[in-house]
C-alpha cells in the first residue's frame, strides 16, 4: 500500500470540525485520490462534542471507520481524553493549544503539534477560522496534500453566499501550515 492517511477530527459542536473534515476529503477527491468521510450523527451530537473521520488513500478504502487512527485533530479537552488513547504509536496529533495544555499529551508516544489556533485565527481577524488553522497545521504536519490543493477546494465547502470569505480561510490554512513549519513538534 502506498499513500494512506486518516484523521479523526474532534471538538465542540460549533468549532467547525465537520467543515474541515469535509474540506480535507474534498481536497483529497480533487487530487484524484479515494476518500471517505463519516461524521457522528444523531442525538450523540446534541450539546456535546462532534467528530468525524476522514480517510485519504490512493488505494480502495475498505472502512470509513477507524479505530486506531494515524492522526488526530483535537480541538477541545474532552476530545483529547477520548481519542488520544486510540492514536497509533508515533501518530500525528494536532492539538488546539489555545484551549488545551499540551502537557496533557503523550508526547513521547505520539508526534504532537501544539498550535494555538484561536490566537492565530484572532490575529487574522476571525476566531471562527481556528478550524482552518488546525487543518492547515495537519496538512503540513502529515504532508497528505499540498496546502494549495486544500485551499483550492475551499470553494466546494463554503457556500456561494460566503464565497467572499474564501481568501481569508485560505490565509488561515496557510497560517496553520506556517506555524508547524516554524515551531515543529511539541517536545
Amino acid at each position, binding site marked *: 500500500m502506498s499513500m494512506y492517511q486518516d484523521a479523526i477530527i474532534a471538538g465542540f459542536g460549533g468549532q467547525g470540525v465537520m467543515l474541515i473534515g469535509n474540506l480535507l476529503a474534498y481536497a483529497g477527491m480533487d487530487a484524484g485520490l479515494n476518500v471517505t468521510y463519516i461524521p457522528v450523527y*444523531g*442525538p450523540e451530537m*446534541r*450539546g456535546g462534542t462532534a467528530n468525524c473521520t476522514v480517510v485519504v488513500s490512493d488505494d480502495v478504502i475498505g472502512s470509513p471507520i477507524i479505530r486506531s487512527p494515524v492522526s488526530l485533530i483535537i480541538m477541545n479537552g474532552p476530545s483529547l481524553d477520548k481519542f488520544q488513547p486510540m492514536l497509533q504509536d508515533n501518530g500525528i496529533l494536532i492539538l488546539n493549544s489555545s484551549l488545551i495544555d499540551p502537557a496533557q499529551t503523550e508526547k513521547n508516544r505520539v508526534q504532537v503539534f501544539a498550535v494555538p489556533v484561536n490566537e492565530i485565527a484572532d490575529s487574522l481577524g476571525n476566531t471562527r477560522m481556528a478550524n482552518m488553522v488546525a487543518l492547515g497545521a495537519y496538512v503540513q504536519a502529515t504532508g497528505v496534500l499540498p496546502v494549495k490543493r486544500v485551499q483550492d477546494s475551499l470553494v466546494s465547502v463554503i457556500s456561494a453566499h460566503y464565497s467572499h470569505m474564501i481568501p481569508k480561510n485560505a490565509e488561515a490554512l496557510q497560517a496553520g501550515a506556517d506555524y508547524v513549519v516554524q515551531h515543529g513538534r511539541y517536545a
Partner: protein
Amino acid sequence: MTQELRVTNYPQVLTDRPTHYCPGCHHGTAHRLVAEALTDLGLVENTILVGSIGCSVFIYNYLSLDAIESPHGRAPAVATGIKRARPDKIVFTYQGDGDLASIGMAEIMHCANRGENITTIFVNNTVYGMTGGQMAPTTLVGQKTTTSPSGRSQEDTGSAIRMTEIIASLGGVAYAERVAVNTIKNIKKAQKAVRKAFEYQVKGLGFSFVEVLATCPTNWHMTPLAANKRIETEMIPYFPLGTYKDVLAKEEK
C-alpha cells in the same frame, strides 16, 4: 440566632445527574414539575413511568421511578397495559409532539376516549427534537424545519394540530389543560396543572392530560432566551393556555 434555610428543595425522585438536554431546553423543567407533583402527593413509590421516543427517551435517568421505554408513539397503549395489569399504581406517559400527535395519534385518542385512568404529560416543542428538527404536526405554519425548509406550507401540509382541544372533546377525559414554562407565572400554573392531573388519577376520575409548550432552541436555531420568548410571541397565541376540560370544575373554558 439566624439559621440558614434552604428555599429550593429538589425532590429526591429527581436524580442527581446532569441532563443531556441542550442549553435552555424545557424538558428539564417539565421533568421537575412531574417530580414535584409526585413528591408532593406522596406517589413516588407507587408510580410507573412510561417513557416515549424523543429527546426525553432517557427520562428514566432523571426520574428515579420504575419505568418502561415504549415504541415511538405507543406510550398510551403501553400505559393502558400497565394500568390494567396494576390498577393500583399511578401510571403516566411523558411524550413529545412528534410522538404523541403524529405517529401516536390513534393511541392517545383512544386511550383518552376509553378514559384510561392515567396521566399524560405532553411536551410540545413544535418539532422533532431528537431526530434533528423535522416538521411535526404541531409545527406552526411558516416555521422552517429540516423537512419544511421554506417554512411549513399550509396548503401542502395543513396547519398545526391543537391536541389539548381535541383531547378535551373526548368522553373519557377528566382533565385537559395547556400550560407553558416560559415565565415564573406560567411555571406556577403548570405546577398546579401537573399536580391536578395526578390528583385526578388518584381519585380515579379518568384520563388527565397536560400539554406543556416548550422550547427547542437547538432546532429552532435560536438562543435559549430567544426561544423562550417565542413561546410567548408565537406559540401561546396559536396554542392558548388554559383549562379545556375539568370534570370537577363548574365551568369549562
